[in-house]
């Protein structure tokens, strides 16, 4: 899969994951890599950019083992952005699917 498209999708997944619950970096990476194949290391720059664009914010929380962990929380702007992106994605993917179904039938 081309990386640009993948990058956008992963952003959607990260925001979606964070609308449910706050997570620390590794949890986000681990959950998403179960569904999408990617270099796990590239999630951190993405998270950093989301933070810079104030879609997410971070805070520290003690962990049972070892030093505190950096947690990510979605902001109101992030939620609004997510809804918009989700709608775009649904329109886009259903259009692509409709098209591909048509291609299948012509086989």
């Amino acid at each position, binding site marked *: 899969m081309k990386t640009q498209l993948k990058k956008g999708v992963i952003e959607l997944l990260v925001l979606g994951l964070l609308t449910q619950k706050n997570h620390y970096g*590794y949890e986000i990476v681990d959950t998403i890599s179960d569904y999408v194949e990617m270099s796990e290391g590239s999630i951190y720059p993405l998270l*950093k950019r989301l933070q810079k664009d104030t879609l997410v914010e971070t805070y520290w929380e003690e962990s049972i083992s070892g030093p505190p962990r950096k947690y990510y929380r979605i902001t109101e702007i992030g939620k609004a952005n997510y809804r918009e992106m989700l709608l775009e994605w649904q329109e886009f993917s259903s259009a692509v699917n409709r098209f591909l179904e048509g291609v299948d039938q012509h086989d």
Partner: protein
Amino acid sequence: MTKEQYLDLLRYYFRQAKAEDMQEIISDYEEHFRSGYEQNLTDEDIIKALGEPKQIYEAYLSEGIITEKKGLLKGDLKEDLKDMLDKAQVEFNTTMKPQLPHYWQEASKAVFVTSGTLAYALAALCWFITLILTYLLSIQWQPLADVAPLPAVSLVTIGAFFLTGVGAGLTCVFIGQECFKQYKAKKAKEVLG
């Protein structure tokens, strides 16, 4: 490759980035390794999943989080200069200054006091000489009887001379004031630590 080697490679790629940015980035990946260990993963498993350090660096570049700074002319020139000055200041304070004998550390303060005092003295001298010369010009003082007297000096010339002298004195006073201001600032800094 071990975790340390991996992080060293990351540090290598991020060497041009701002120190605080690099620190934050490295600490994210350190945390990632710690969390991986809790899932009983080895360094090798974690590194394989993370991907190449170079790719990670490129991802940060393309997200626009770090900007590459290779020379003075790249990036923000003013920021670079400020960076350089800050670094020089810190380096002086941490490496040079502790090595200097005590009286050298005091020197800058002493220099300001001395130059300030000198400037004030010069101002006083300036005004004193101006007054005397203005007076002598106005009475057309002629101490040597056998020398032809100077042509009469007009009132305008005397006035201009007087004002020049006063101005020179004022300049000295301002210089002195600045010196003492610096001295006081330094002293206040010392008291406040």
